[in-house]
């Protein structure tokens, strides 16, 4: 089976969390590594890229523009691979159906990293030595950190789609790799928007934190910095390990510390297990006044890869409480009619969007559009083209890079998403209604996160006035509490 045929994993998330594999040292023995080695052998060859290969015109790369894709299509990160497959299949179909780029077809070459960082390095080396590959989409696959020095030497255009270099201080101009750009919303921004909401909107002062120390080892420092900046007191700092079977000791300490909110940083399955453990000790979230009361009922704020998708709620059942929050970005509102990716997936793949599909598609278009703008596949010219091409509009929102900003996201792009259930909104005073998408997009019985409009509305309007006007006009997202004059207030106790 070729890697192009791989279609693995289903649920939605978007973090470079599979770094755990390197930490636990499975790489050399894992069967998943065997899968990773099962790709197209002609592309597995590792050879240094020569200067001659770096400078190429349109004519040398044939009739098709090829983009390399490095992602986990197997192993615990396989659900990322599923999103990447859907996104790129739809995007490639759309580009080619509308005439391609400069009359040339676009194709992607997918390589699986599994849980082995060496597989990512090897895949990159194969792409770098393949003259027909114009750039690389790094979609959560391992090996990006290890490849940075070679990327710098090659000057290969790379889009970090689901890898967070920015939060670690490893994105240009902080480091020298000028050919690398990031689309992923950084963790640091997610922490900032969540801690600010907890402190200034909900009025919490004491917050607990529990994170997967194997998967997201840097989360503690980032959370601590954000909490301090927001003026929050930390009430309990706990760790767990990927796939832990019991959270009792940690939950017991968090309960005794009595934080009004609880930040949970991990992936969906563990988040669900943890929420069941919180519920087991009677700590389920009710609303803000209860969270601030004497008993422990913390308002849960989770990581985008944990509570940012529906799987955790499906698994946790009744322990997944309405009002659980996480950070997201405006471009991720894939249900909006004006965002193209939803229509493409329906048209070409007969599939519904689940979220996250906008990012690989946008990364792909950035690279092929850069070829067009640069007038060829010269890597240096492509990098300059990406820096200077201005707003790029493809799968969802317009975005841009510049010579001094290789991150497409800004704080004004961030939104909050809150868990809702199609069984109806929580009973609050005043009451609120679920947004339009619950009638027109989501299937019956759906449980999942939805845009919480009010808290970030002003910032989002600054960045994307047209999109936010569409959100308000069509009634998308949770808009409690909506006043008679159309403004939104925070009287709704659960949000």
């Amino acid at each position: 089976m070729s890697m192009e045929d791989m279609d693995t994993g289903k649920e939605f998330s978007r973090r470079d969390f599979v770094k755990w594999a390197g930490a636990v040292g499975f790489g050399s023995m894992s069967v998943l590594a065997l899968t990773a080695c099962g790709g197209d052998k002609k592309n597995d060859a590792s050879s240094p890229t020569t200067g001659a290969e770096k400078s190429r015109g349109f004519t040398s790369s044939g009739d098709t523009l090829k983009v390399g894709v490095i992602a986990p299509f197997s192993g615990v990160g396989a659900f990322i691979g599923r999103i990447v497959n859907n996104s790129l299949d739809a995007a490639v179909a759309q580009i080619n159906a509308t005439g391609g780029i400069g009359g040339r077809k676009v194709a992607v070459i997918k390589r699986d990293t599994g849980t082995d960082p060496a597989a990512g390095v090897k895949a990159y080396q194969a792409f770098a030595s393949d003259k027909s590959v114009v750039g690389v989409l790094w979609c959560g696959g391992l090996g990006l950190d290890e490849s940075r020095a070679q990327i710098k030497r090659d000057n290969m255009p790379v889009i970090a789609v689901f890898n967070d270099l920015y939060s670690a201080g490893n994105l240009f101009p902080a480091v020298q790799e000028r050919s690398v750009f990031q689309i992923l919303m950084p963790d640091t921004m997610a922490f900032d928007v969540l801690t600010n909401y907890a402190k200034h909107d909900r009025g919490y002062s004491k917050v607990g934190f529990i994170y997967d120390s194997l998967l997201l080892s840097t989360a503690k420092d980032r959370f601590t910095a954000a909490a301090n900046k927001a003026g929050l007191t930390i009430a309990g700092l706990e760790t767990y390990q990927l796939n832990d079977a019991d959270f009792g000791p940690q939950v017991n300490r968090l309960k005794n510390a009595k934080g009004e909110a609880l930040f949970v940083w991990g992936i969906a399955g563990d988040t669900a297990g943890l929420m069941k453990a919180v519920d087991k000790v009677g700590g389920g979230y009710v609303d803000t006044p209860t969270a601030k009361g004497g008993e422990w009922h913390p308002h849960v704020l989770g990581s985008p890869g944990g509570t940012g998708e529906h799987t955790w709620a499906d698994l946790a059942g009744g322990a997944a409480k309405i009002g659980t929050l996480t950070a997201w970005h405006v471009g991720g509102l894939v249900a909006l009619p004006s965002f193209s990716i939803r229509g493409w997936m329906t048209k070409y793949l007969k599939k519904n969007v689940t979220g996250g599909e906008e990012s690989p598609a946008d990364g792909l278009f950035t690279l092929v559009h850069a070829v067009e703008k640069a007038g060829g596949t010269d890597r240096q010219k492509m990098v300059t083209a990406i820096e200077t091409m201005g707003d790029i509009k493809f799968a969802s929102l317009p975005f841009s890079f510049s010579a001094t900003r290789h991150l497409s996201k800004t704080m004004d792009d961030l939104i909050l998403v809150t868990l809702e259930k199609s069984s109806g909104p929580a009973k609050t005073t005043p009451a609120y209604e679920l947004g339009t998408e619950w009638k027109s997009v989501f299937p019956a019985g759906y449980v999942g996160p939805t845009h919480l409009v009010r808290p970030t509305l002003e910032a989002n309007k600054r960045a994307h006035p047209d999109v936010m006007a569409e959100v308000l006009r069509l009634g998308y997202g949770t808009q409690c509490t909506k006043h008679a004059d159309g403004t939104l207030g925070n009287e709704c106790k659960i949000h």
Partner: protein
Amino acid sequence: MSDFVQIVVYGMTVGSVLALVALGYNLVFATSRVVNFAQGSMLVVGGFVAFAFIRAGVPLWGALPLATLVGAGVGVAVDMAAIRPLRDFDPGTSVGWILTTFSASLVCLDVVKLTIGAEPRTIPALAESVFGWRGSTIAGIPVVPADVLIVLSALVLMVVGEYVQRHTMAGRALRAVSQDRAAASLMGINPRQMVMASFAIAGALGALGAVLLAPRLFVKFDNGLLLGIQAFVAAVIGGLGSTRGAVLGGFVLGFVGGILRVMSSAGGQYEPLVIFVVFLLVLVVRPTGLLGAPVVEKA
């Protein structure tokens, strides 16, 4: 007091989770001297098959035996695909079984992925209440029927396994094959059938374990790899081939994890380090594991 109860609850439940998986490793090793690296996948197969039956409308108590049967069938298939084609081999010197059992594991996972799906799932707990008891709090630590069921299952399976191996003809035949395959053949025992039977039982155990573990760990692909490796370590610490050893090894890991987590909020981070120190110490002091029997080389 609260800390002590917490350690006991953590150690017993997590230890039993690992023991349930480790029992499968041990059973196959006992008869074939092969470590079945597809055992973790049995957990995934069993869990997803149980989920598929429940999704199709079969009640949980019906889905459990059906999934167990399918698990047994998959175990047999693994034996036929991964072990039999190697013919007569010495597992100590010919290590082709490592690759074949890994490969069988991959095939099992892909078949589940293509037929049932790869999305994590949940299935109901086998027991939400026992005679009206829905859970208690001991020194502030909650205990629910599903936890008790996991612990009881591990202990009951250990006792039944021990009894069958020691006091039934079939069990004696399994042990005979384990001790001396050639001599067992001369006594009229078909070693291949015994090995196949052990794979079948291990597959069934995987399905049973998956259903029991679902309230805590759900039904997901990660369980196969992550629990599979932890359970393998538990089996080696307890003594590969020993039923009691599997449970003891699980409890050792469970209690180590519980103590570390109760001692410190960062305790879990040190668990792999401590566990592998324990692992090495056990292997240095008792190379066959805590309860493993030394292999006697026949002249």
